[in-house]
């Protein structure tokens, strides 16, 4: 299968006027953002074409809204614990602000069934939202993030290595670069064994500059793998704006260069994310090869932990105290918060008559109760047994202690 004319046409912004000054760059990105927020409206004006979310059941739509809230309140509750509870040892690379991406992507995947039937998701160093969206149990995840023996991974991995193959969440990856190549490797095995499973990787804008980006897309295209690359472009990789590492305004342009169908979507709108993902999954399942989706989004907290955040408040304002040579302007954050994924999803569902405001509030209340319960449960869990660190190096047995000489 080939790809539509549209996909083949390189993005105008990306092929004109190199090199882009950072200011000019932000201006263009701003416009893009505007264009995107219009996107949904247009799609709807155009009627049903490619607008798959319209076909979803009310329950499914409500589940998506609830998932966005579950991620959001998990984030906020954890941030408050980090800031307010001196005994709490967990940490996080907060995902708040990007919830609609994980939710829209995973809503289009097969998340339960036998391991050789479900779709696989490879995540990043910022995994908590991806994990919940793929179906990871919140209690087990909270316990893992708190280094508990009964946590999702028995306390061996914690936040950057969350993994639960039983729901197809292969897991987080503390490294930047290797994940996408590993993910397309799973897609390679699906093709080899004739399975209709799909392998999905989440990657940040920071993954664009890694050498792995080329290996991943080039081979996924050459072998027509059932692989989907979700690039969450939140504008920054740690302390550098993505214009420091990419000559493209839309990183999707780079994917099109390989002949891979690539869409740019508004990552704050779960409906847009779902619609693009639905088409990509169909393409992959039917042997149509890989797809690339760039979701323009933004993180409300700083790169790591909760510096700059306040208990009870959403987001971290002011400059990241850890950043030095590249800052994210506070106004940029405030502007993005105007287009909050929770608000957009809530408004859409009310607008479609799926729920009313009262029901929306109820759902949020239920979610907050679930989140509080998960953290409370985790806090009760036992700590790890030191000697167990020698286990799980290999499938059987344990390695000898060597620290005693």
């Amino acid at each position, binding site marked *: 299968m080939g790809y539509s004319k549209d996909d083949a046409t390189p993005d105008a912004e990306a092929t004109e006027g190199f090199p882009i000054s950072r200011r000019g760059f932000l201006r263009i990105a701003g416009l893009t953002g505007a264009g995107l927020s219009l996107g949904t409206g247009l799609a709807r004006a155009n009627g049903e074409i490619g607008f798959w979310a319209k076909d979803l059941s009310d329950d499914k739509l409500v589940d998506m809204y609830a998932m966005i809230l579950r991620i959001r309140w998990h984030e906020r509750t954890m941030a408050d614990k980090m800031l307010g509870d001196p005994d709490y040892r967990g940490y996080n690379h907060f995902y708040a602000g990007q919830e609609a991406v994980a939710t829209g992507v995973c809503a289009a995947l097969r998340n339960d069934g036998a391991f050789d039937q479900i779709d696989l998701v490879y995540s990043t160093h910022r995994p908590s939202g991806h994990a919940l969206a793929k179906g990871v149990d919140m209690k087990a995840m909270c316990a893992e993030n708190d280094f508990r023996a009964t946590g999702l991974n028995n*306390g*061996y991995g914690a936040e950057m290595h969350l993994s639960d193959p039983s729901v197809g969440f*292969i897991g987080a990856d503390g490294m930047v670069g*290797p994940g996408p*190549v590993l993910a397309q490797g799973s897609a*390679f095995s699906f093709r080899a064994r004739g399975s209709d499973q799909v392998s999905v990787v989440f990657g940040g804008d920071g993954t664009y500059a890694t050498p*792995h980006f080329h290996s991943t897309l080039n081979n996924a295209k050459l072998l027509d793998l059932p692989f989907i690359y979700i690039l969450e472009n939140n504008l920054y990789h740690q302390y550098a704006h993505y214009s420091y590492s990419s000559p493209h305004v839309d990183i999707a342009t780079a994917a099109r260069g390989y002949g891979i169908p690539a869409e740019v979507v508004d990552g704050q709108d779960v409906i847009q994310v779902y619609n693009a993902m639905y088409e990509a999954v169909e393409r992959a399942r039917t042997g149509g090869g890989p797809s690339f989706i760039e979701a323009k989004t933004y993180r409300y907290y700083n790169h790591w932990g909760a510096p700059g955040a306040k208990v009870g408040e959403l987001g971290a304002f002011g400059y990241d105290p850890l950043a030095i040579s590249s800052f994210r302007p506070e106004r940029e954050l405030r502007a993005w918060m105007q287009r909050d994924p929770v608000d957009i999803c809530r408004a859409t569902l009310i607008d479609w008559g799926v729920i009313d405001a009262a029901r929306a509030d109820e759902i949020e209340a239920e979610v907050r109760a679930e989140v509080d319960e998960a953290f409370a449960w985790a806090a009760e869990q036992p700590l790890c047994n030191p000697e167990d660190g020698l286990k*799980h*190096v290999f*499938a059987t047995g344990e390695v000898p202690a060597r620290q005693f000489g």
Partner: protein
Amino acid sequence: MTEKSWLYSVLEAVQGEMREDPAMTWLFELTPPVASNPGMPVINLETEFGRKRVVNTGIDENWMVSTVIGSGLAGSRSATYVPYQGAAMPFQVIQNHAGKLRHMTGGKASMPVVFIIELTGQTPGFAGQHSDYELDTAYAHIAGVRTVVPSTPYDAKGMMVSALRSPDPVVYLYPAGLRTLTEEVPDGQYEVPLDKAAVRMEGGDLTIVGNGPSMPIAMEAAGRLKEEGMSPEVIDLRVLKEMDTETLVNSVAKTKRLLTVDQSYYTLCPGAEVIARVAENVEGARYKRVAFPDAPPPASPEMFLWMRPNADHVFDAATQLVG
């Protein structure tokens, strides 16, 4: 049983497993999975299993190995043959992902995969990456991967079967210089353990420990030492991780003399680990190490062959250690 070449023996093991398991895959780059052997059918994995399962790729060894790991994580057994020129390219993903994922996930991740890492070190004239033998140490030091280095066609096949059946990722070092070896190898599948050294010659005067490419010279030297009336014990490590300390310690406890032989660079060669483990457990023994100097291999055959450990070096070192 038929006399078989090294490559034929290895591909026989792979073919046997791939016939049993339709999901298993094989990735290669410039070394086609093809071998012929007198009196045996030609093996060609690519034509037998097709290009969806057996893939000829571009020049990207990190991709080859990462794809094998990703296949393993998805539940498919998979193996790849990395040519010596690319032997270091996949180091990071083997060290950080293959080696750590099972542990980091509390046992949830399983990778039934094999990375055949070809190492050269035998061929004069090529220099640098085309003549070096050095990555054994890098792969043996990291955690979570079983690093093995067979030294005979029989072990090559048996350890390949065991590696392919192991739920653990295996770095299967393939010393290119041993390609020319042939011996009687069973036609059926059989396993050779991934955690045992082999005593190749029993003796009481000194222990000579080699591995992979240094075994032929260790054995040749030991044969000559025997003719001189000496009684050397020769151990083939076979496994660098997890190293079989017991066999080493028992031998040196008896001989009180240990000579290690490596093709790898002297500093931190496998022999250093052998000596350290023995020294921690045996008192009053004497030690010597034969290894490649801490220098890249030069092209000139005159320089290279003088630097590369050979049977004379082992013979002389052993004589000094005992005398």
